[in-house]
């Protein structure tokens, strides 16, 4: 039984590898799949961290950073919500304070530049503001390899998007069980970057 399944794994490139994987796990006697999946959602029922006003800024920033194009953007994926819940579960007080501060600085810098509160600006003004803020902060961080509060925030946003199912499989490319490694193929065969 086991041996037959191993043979399939090697000789069945036409099968959907993810289904094959679940089948293999079933054959190997794993009942852990369903329970682990349920417990691993970062989300359902989990707490959020940011205050309502900062969350509003984060929502907007996420969608400006990764907008909907011919694939879904941050809003559809729920990036800001994911980051908010992740900060509640993962971040230390020090990291939370830094993230609060960088969101406040982002909001306040908009007022200084435009005289209006951030969320009252036009979408194009908000995007221009993010572009300037990002360029300044990334340049400031590039001298050191250590993360800065802004690069931590940007990393959280990009990670939440590109490692989501939509980000990994629609925007980029991902295969759960690629099969034997092929080391040197034309990029055109894949077309886009692998998410991992």
């Amino acid at each position, binding site marked *: 039984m086991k041996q037959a399944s*191993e043979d399939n794994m090697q000789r069945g490139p036409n099968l959907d590898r993810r289904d094959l994987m679940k089948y293999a796990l079933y054959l190997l006697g794993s009942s852990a799949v369903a329970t682990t999946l349920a417990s691993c959602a970062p989300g359902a029922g989990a707490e959020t961290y940011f205050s309502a006003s900062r969350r509003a800024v984060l929502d907007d920033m996420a969608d400006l950073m990764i907008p909907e194009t011919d694939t879904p953007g941050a809003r559809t994926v729920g990036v800001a919500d994911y980051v908010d819940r992740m900060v509640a579960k*993962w971040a230390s007080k020090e990291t939370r304070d830094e993230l609060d501060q960088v969101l406040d600085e982002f909001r306040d810098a908009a007022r200084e530049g435009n005289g209006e509160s951030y969320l009252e600006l036009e979408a194009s003004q908000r995007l221009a503001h993010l572009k300037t803020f990002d360029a300044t902060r990334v340049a400031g961080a590039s001298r050191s390899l250590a993360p800065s509060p802004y690069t931590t925030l940007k990393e959280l946003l*990009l990670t939440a998007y590109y490692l989501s199912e939509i980000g990994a499989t629609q925007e980029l490319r991902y295969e759960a069980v690629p099969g034997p490694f092929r080391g040197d193929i*034309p990029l055109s065969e894949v077309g886009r970057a692998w998410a991992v």
Partner: protein
Amino acid sequence: MDFDVIVVGSGMTGGWAAKELTEQGFKVLVLERGRRLEHAADYTDHLQPWELENRGKVPEDECAEHYAVQSTLYAFDSATKHYWVKDSEHPYSTPEDRPFMWYRGYHLGGRSIMWGRQSYRLSDIDFEANKRDGHGADWPIRYADLAPWYDRVERFIGVAGTREGMPQLPDGQFQRPLEVTAIEKDFQSKIARQFPGRRLFPARVAHLTEPTEEQLELGRGACQSRSVCARGCSFGAYFSSLSGTLPAAERTGNLTIVTDAIVERVIYDPTTRRAKSVQVIDANTKEKRTYEARVVFMCASAIATTQILLNSGSEAFPNGLANRSDQVGRNLMDHFGGLYAGFSTNHMDRYYHGRRPSGGYIPRYRNVTESGEGFVRGFGFQTMTMRSNWTNGVRQPGVGAELKEGLRQPGPWRVIMSGFGEMLPYSNNRVTLHASRRDQWGMPIVHIDCVHGENERKIKECMEKDALEMLGAAGYGGQTVPFGTSAPGDKIHEMGTARMGREPMTSVLNAHNHAHDIDNLYITDGASMASSGCQNPSLTYMALTARAAHHAGDRLRAGTL
């Protein structure tokens, strides 16, 4: 007596001792201090990136409170943390200004679940090194003694690799190598052209590419290029105790495994002058009990084996069991080295399919084909190549549709070199028992005092110079990347604290990993190493174990044990 042999530990070497001894018909008891871990069922390799808790990040407060050492490791994340000990529950001490990183996991299979899978033979350049330059004690064996056992181990575990015919890195029994990338071919040819004597070829890794009948029978299958190895592999595509040796031992009907059994001491009988029994503490109830057998194999890993020996002192052995030489605990070694990275925009129309769980290898050339520049021994490099992806967006300016569009395509090739230097055996690099601190089971904790010396400093300097020179000559730029802690222990290759040697007064074990002082005690884990080489050591530990298990088997059958 219920058992012929007690094997202490179920990891890389414990699994091999169990397999080789049960297959010879002996009744074997494996004692594992950690919990039972079920192959596949307890792994997390089925989780997709979006299913990982916190996208893989372990909460920062939890890292600080419970995983101060373990969380500094590359393989530590929310899907693997259950394989690593809580430092808060398993303390050890070091001098304040001399950190030592001790990475470990307490569960059935030990670190064979989380190992890097790189599998290289030592050569006579390594076995003769101590004798040649006078550091440490001469190995009591040479390559020819171990070669058939390397063959045996490689055939069973399955190693993907290429035959290269290099004297410093003997070829073995290989399955088809994993394919190389476009930039790796580029780097290979540039190194061959510009640095005669240096060579880059596919890493030799314990991943199945052409599973044998024996491997298929054990339920193992070919590598699927998922590269989630650190979470365990439900395909059994890389070798571990749980995918290979323990199932092989189990099917003989001669194996008993007891988990949650912390070995406190090996009890010596002064009348018979033999190890009489093994005393364990139940990890959960803290009750003590003993097991008896004709032979004891210590396979608990270098530092843990040392802790047990030192804690097994008696009137006959006031300094610890099998320690008349005073070498138990001394000569602690690890590997060391930096990380060096370059990038290239050549071959931007080439890519790969799958996530290769390995890379390339450049074996030692210093003090082989090129001089040592003021140091003895040498170093090798593991290399990794990949094209950068969306993670590049974090530190590059850019937002919005433009950012998204830019990150859709893979970025430049990255070429990463990771150095592995040989560390000399120094008698003052030492594991001892702490004078007063005990763990929650009442065991004295270990105190580890280990520093790199002048030879290591010179090797590291040369390693960096050479890496940057090779990356530069290939046109990849090249810089040193701060990575890891660079403290001893960092490479997780700790070894040497019960060394093999020719003289009972200067070594703990003879040529068969058999204690000079005690007739029925074998030590076959990393503690037995007389020198470290610069190759990843697990393959050698396994070969030494298999060889010792047959030595013990012969003596058991002859009635001399």
